[in-house]
């Protein structure tokens, strides 16, 4: 008996140029209590596919072909009332962003009760008890009180748990999860994954989970499907997939995931996915593929793989996944004179106003409390910690974008740095550059790449247009972008390309110190790998020191010479990357390592779970 059966599902844009559909010819079969993970990078169509499983197609899209049979009903063509009856008791979804998916004006309890009420489950009198029960099941503390709260009064993790409780309300037989942990802290992530795993075991429901993070899927599901450019290219049992990925894309994808145990830069995938709306001509991965041949001009059909599952490739590689060799010892550490010295840095958010001082209200707690470190010339120092640990604040305080409460920041050759950029001289400003997390926000959408690069050149070196042109081309070449990109605007670039431009802009100032604030966390994993190697290369060739802030220890460990672990505003531990990762001394460091290992544990994946 099939619970879910998708056949030939194609979802296209409702308007605009005819091109490659968002989801092409997707086929999925799932029995009761079975699990499937769908992996892929942003824009591959995985979320669209997931929503279609509930019979929902977002505005602007339309079902061009195919059916989604859910418990014997084609939910896509069923009348609205039948669709509604299926949602809840048969299929339920945990949305990507719980914070946006809870109705702001309704109490948590009411929203849960509503889910029960609309399907006529339970007499109204029995609902409050069931609501509390649900909240307890998702391990929320004090369910009675949580039920009376509004969504905005909960933390992100709590909201995610509420969303799960809501999905579970009508005891669905199929649970859909859309990036269930993205946007959450590593430890919170881990808790949610544990919970989902437990719930699945307890209820025996089937599960389809979509994520860009293969580690998440490996923990939750027994099968993994990989999507690329709207198509499912590989559909394998998880163990076989992780050890012997067959599709060249899947192999490259797995190789680009940074691993805590390896301590080397992961491999990146050259090129970029086909633009949305481009016309499909044969295998979509060809331009980036290491093994392309003559028959790749046709769309490959699925073929079975010996170790289980199937793959859509004309020339699949069934050999074991080869990863870069692990780094050992404290190699690569460059120790030289300190170029940036931070002493006893303290930052508080907000300032006690006169009224607060009058009534004796205590000053707000310090976000950064007594942090000291030295960045050597040409060294890459990683600053790692969870959100709220104060790592970005340190970066901004050093850059002069956030007032510090105490402490001294010294830049060798420029002396002590003033607290605010406006008080710093041009030379000091030029020597310290910052790169932000999100290149969408840090590049002015109205400026061309040329204008973006021209700004530091003009500001610090009074460059003429001709010099801007020449140096702009050089900088683009340095970040591996074509000179034609000078004319483009950020909107015409991919996320990775934008971050390269942001890096180019920072290096245009020929800085001695570059501050990187979570520069890869908004990027897809394959793109992240290339940006990391770019940063390493730029710093090494130019002798620029880098302060690299990230929440992912695996990323930091892969890139940095030295690592400082930040915990609650203080440095818990500091040392060479290899040492920190192999022989942590602080308990907090150990927990970070554990989480990183668990979340990306597919290197040593055990035998598949019985399904």
């Amino acid at each position, binding site marked *: 008996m099939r619970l879910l059966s998708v056949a030939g599902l194609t979802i296209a844009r409702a308007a605009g140029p005819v091109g490659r559909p968002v989801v092409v010819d997707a086929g999925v079969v799932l029995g009761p209590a079975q699990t499937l993970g769908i992996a892929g990078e942003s824009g591959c169509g995985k979320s669209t596919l997931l929503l279609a499983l509930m019979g929902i197609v977002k505005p602007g899209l339309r079902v061009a072909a195919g059916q989604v049979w859910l418990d014997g009903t084609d939910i896509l063509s069923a009348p609205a009332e039948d669709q509604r009856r299926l949602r809840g008791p048969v299929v339920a979804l945990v949305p990507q962003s719980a914070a946006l998916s809870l109705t702001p004006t309704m109490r948590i309890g009411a929203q849960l009760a509503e889910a029960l009420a609309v399907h006529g489950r339970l007499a109204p009198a029995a609902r409050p008890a069931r609501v509390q029960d649900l909240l307890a099941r998702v391990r929320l503390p004090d369910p009675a009180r949580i039920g009376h709260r509004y969504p905005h009064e909960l933390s992100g993790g709590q909201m995610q748990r509420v969303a799960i409780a809501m999905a579970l309300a009508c005891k669905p037989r199929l649970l859909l999860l859309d990036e269930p942990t993205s946007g959450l802290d590593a430890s919170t992530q881990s808790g949610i994954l544990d919970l989902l795993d437990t719930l699945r075991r307890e209820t025996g429901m089937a599960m389809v989970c979509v994520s860009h993070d293969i580690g998440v899927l490996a923990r939750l599901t027994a099968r993994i499907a990989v999507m690329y450019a709207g198509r499912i290219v590989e559909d394998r049992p998880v163990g076989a997939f992780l050890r012997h990925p067959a599709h060249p894309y899947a192999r490259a994808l797995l190789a680009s995931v940074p691993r805590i145990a390896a301590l080397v830069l992961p491999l990146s995938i050259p090129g970029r996915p086909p633009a949305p709306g481009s016309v499909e001509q044969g295998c979509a991965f060809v331009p980036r593929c290491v093994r392309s041949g003559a028959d790749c001009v046709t769309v490959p059909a699925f073929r079975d793989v010996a170790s289980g599952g199937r793959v859509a490739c004309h020339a699949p590689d069934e050999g074991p996944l080869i990863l870069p060799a692990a780094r050992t010892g404290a190699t690569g550490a460059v120790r030289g004179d300190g170029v940036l010295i931070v002493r006893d840095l303290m930052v508080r958010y907000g300032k006690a106003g006169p009224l607060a001082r009058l009534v004796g209200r205590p000053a707000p707690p310090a976000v950064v409390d007594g942090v000291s470190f030295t960045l050597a010339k040409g060294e890459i120092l990683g600053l790692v910690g969870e959100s709220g640990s104060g790592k970005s604040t340190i970066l901004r305080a050093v850059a002069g*974008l956030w007032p510090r409460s105490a402490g001294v920041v010294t830049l060798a050759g420029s002396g002590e740095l003033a607290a605010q950029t406006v008080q710093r001289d041009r030379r000091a400003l030029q020597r310290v*550059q*910052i790169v932000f*997390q999100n290149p969408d*926000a840090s*590049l*002015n959408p*109205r400026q061309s790449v040329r204008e973006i690069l021209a700004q530091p050149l003009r*500001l610090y070196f009074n460059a003429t247009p001709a010099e801007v042109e020449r140096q702009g081309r050089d900088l683009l070449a340095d970040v591996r972008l074509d000179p034609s990109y000078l004319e483009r605007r950020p909107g015409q670039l991919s996320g990775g390309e934008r971050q390269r431009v942001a890096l180019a*802009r920072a290096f245009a100032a020929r800085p001695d110190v570059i501050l990187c604030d979570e520069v890869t966390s908004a990027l897809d994993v394959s793109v992240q790998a290339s940006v990391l190697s770019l940063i390493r290369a730029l710093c090494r060739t130019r002798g620029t020191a880098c302060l690299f802030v990230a929440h992912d220890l695996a990323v930091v460990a892969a890139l940095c010479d030295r690592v400082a672990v930040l915990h609650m505003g203080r440095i818990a531990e500091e040392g060479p990357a290899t040492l920190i990762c192999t022989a942590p001394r602080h308990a907090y460091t150990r927990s970070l390592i554990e989480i990183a290992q668990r979340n990306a544990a597919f290197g040593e994946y055990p035998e598949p779970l019985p399904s």
Partner: protein
Amino acid sequence: MTASSTLRAVLKQPSGVVGVALVVAHVTMALVAPMIVPHNPTLQSAGAILQAPSWTHPFGTDRLGRDLLSRALLGGREAMLIATLSTVAAMLWGAMLGLFVALQGGRTDAYVMRIVDAMVSIPWVLMVMIFVAALGVGARALIPVLSFSYGLSVVYIARAAALDFVARDFVLAAQARGERRVTILWREILPNVRDTLAVQGAMQWSWILLGISSLSFLGLGVAPPAPDWGLMIADGRGIMQAAPWTVLWPMAMLSSLIVGVNLAADAIAKALGVDRTFGVAAP
């Protein structure tokens, strides 16, 4: 977005077509009217007082026997000119102040906006009347007044639009580079709020035009005998029962222009993806 692609997106919307057509028709008319009007708009005729529309006078005549077709065709020129000058001035000072306080933030922002709040709470008509009493009647004298009172709402719009961007990382990046405030305003923020301000400018223009007409209607605007729609409506209002044509034509002309500008601005806003929900008419 380039100008031509914006225009194409505007013309895809039916309201955009109507709006642009009305505006183009009005502007063309204002430019060529002096050459094509059938009669001298100020020629009085004791023998042709308050004549209903006829072949000689397709729009009829007014109390002084003047040809209403000629007057209606010419009746927007002065107001349009003044509206244009006032809009430019209002947009200039309003946008500059709005952008400046948005970037400055903190106390400057709070103080300035409090004063702007207070100004805004006084009805613009009252404010203009006070100004007119101070500066004297005359359409040109209205320019500083109108640009001041209408600029107040530009301050709001520009500030709100800029606030969307001042917290963005690219502004932060510019600050980190040590760019001067003026440079940040000019290079980083202005290009991003340009569309919003352009749409706002178009709407301001229509509102100022409306304001001038209202003032002319109240006798504080364009001076006779210059043909002006507001004046014509005021002049004919008392006799519209007996001679409705004296008010209907100028009403139709004024309304179609203002509605046209707004339809066009609305379509442009949609095409540019600018949110113009909170474009309240009077400041």
